[in-house]
């Protein structure tokens, strides 16, 4: 794994012209109107690097294919959590399901799995933080988080890391709750929060003018990959989220260097209820 820009913190710029992150390519001109065809380019997601923070991903699953890295948050003997290379794969099936959805939308994107679920309930918040911090260090374009935490002490650190991700152009796509439970990071404005619509179209995105859930994607009866090369049909916001991650991979594959703010704007403009998905 090639580390990105080093560390999981911001290099600050205080004046116009300061550019600690390096000059990222930007579109020479923005078309009007923004269409799906322009936004998604060839639709392959080639060049985009997507990290899945979940239960792991099964290697070489028929609906996922090879993935470009598999890691897991482990606990050292001293009680610290660290990220190490992983061979165990998926301990549940859910991470594989997310990977299969992302692959179906962005077949040429890179997928890197980080298992953050599996240390049990005492260590779950710390594992999430450790995994996300590591993902920021690797400078992934998209970080899929079909999960959340209800722990306030974890939320504070998550809030900071989500801000870092936003300014460093690491796009966090996070599942909203479908019940009134206060959880994070989907409530943060710096991430893209996702709920479910009931339409079977995997490319249909719906913008929500009444946040905090900002977008709805397919989350109802979604065919997904599961353990042992299997398939299942699942519903829930956690399956809507990788649809949006796949769309973001398409956008960033075609238009590398866009900021989360710009990607969110493009998503808004191609939403089915904004422009008719032109």
């Amino acid at each position, binding site marked *: 794994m090639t580390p990105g820009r080093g560390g999981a913190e911001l290099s600050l710029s205080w004046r116009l012209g300061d550019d600690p992150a390096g000059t990222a390519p930007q579109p020479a001109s923005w078309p009007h109107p923004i269409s799906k065809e322009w936004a998604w380019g060839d639709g392959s997601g080639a060049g985009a690097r997507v990290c899945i923070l979940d239960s792991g991903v099964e290697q070489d699953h028929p609906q996922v294919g090879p993935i470009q890295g598999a890691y897991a948050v482990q606990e050292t003997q001293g009680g610290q959590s660290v990220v190490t290379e992983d061979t165990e794969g998926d301990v549940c099936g859910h991470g594989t399901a997310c990977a299969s959805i992302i692959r179906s939308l962005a077949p040429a994107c890179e997928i890197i799995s980080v298992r953050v679920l599996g240390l049990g309930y005492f260590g779950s918040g710390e594992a999430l933080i450790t995994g996300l911090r590591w993902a920021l260090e690797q400078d992934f374009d998209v970080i899929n988080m079909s999960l959340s935490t209800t722990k306030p002490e974890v939320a504070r650190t998550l809030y900071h890391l989500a801000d870092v991700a936003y300014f460093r152009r690491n796009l966090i796509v996070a599942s909203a709750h479908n019940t009134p439970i206060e959880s994070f990071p989907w409530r943060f404005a710096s991430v893209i929060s996702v709920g479910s619509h009931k339409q079977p179209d995997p490319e249909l995105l719906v913008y929500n003018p009444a946040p905090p859930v900002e977008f709805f994607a397919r989350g109802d009866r979604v065919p997904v990959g599961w353990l042992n090369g299997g398939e299942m*049909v699942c519903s829930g916001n956690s399956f809507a989220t990788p649809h949006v991650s796949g769309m973001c991979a398409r956008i960033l594959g075609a238009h590398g260097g866009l900021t989360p703010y710009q990607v969110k704007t493009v998503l808004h403009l191609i939403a089915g209820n904004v422009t008719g998905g032109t």
Partner: protein
Amino acid sequence: MEGQDLALLLGAGSAENGRAHRLLLQSIAETTRAACVAQACSIQRLDIARREFVFEAVAGQGEDSMIGRRYPSDRGIAGWTLLSRQSIVVDDVSVEPSFAKDVAESTGYVPRSIVAFPLIKDDAPVGVMEVLDYELDEERGIGCLEFVAPFAGQASIVLQLVERDRTVGEAVEADAELRELAALTSAFSALSEEKRQTAVRLLRLIRELM
């Protein structure tokens, strides 16, 4: 032990409260099962110390044999649901042999579909509610989650009460002074009205002496 728990312990009828909470939990499982036209509904408590789920209430399939059964809490759909705080519906689980086997081993019944809901109370994971083979044709998929959500909310509250009852019971079991107080309370509540008034006068005298 917290003050409110001690107050509960010393309050007349605490054992009755405990029974009522367990009956209420069972009632929620039965109501959910009936409303969803499901084969089974279970409410499972998370035992953090042992990293296991424990079946606290079961309606339908397995209700005669599953109460008290345990299985590892950090694997499978239920484990993922609670760790991730995300609810999920899985259809056609029978097409995935290992998953069906996992569920069968943990519940004694192989379902076709499963709805799993994380039970959260005061920011803490307390358990999982599962509905097996629901038949709400018009509410399948994501609509089923919306339908089940209020029942899961009730289960979260009552499961916490059941857990508190258990904590109180274990504390009393482990503490000789609390056992003595509990025995005193129990004996006091069993007295006739006349003897109870006498006992109250005695207790007041003791308090003055203290």
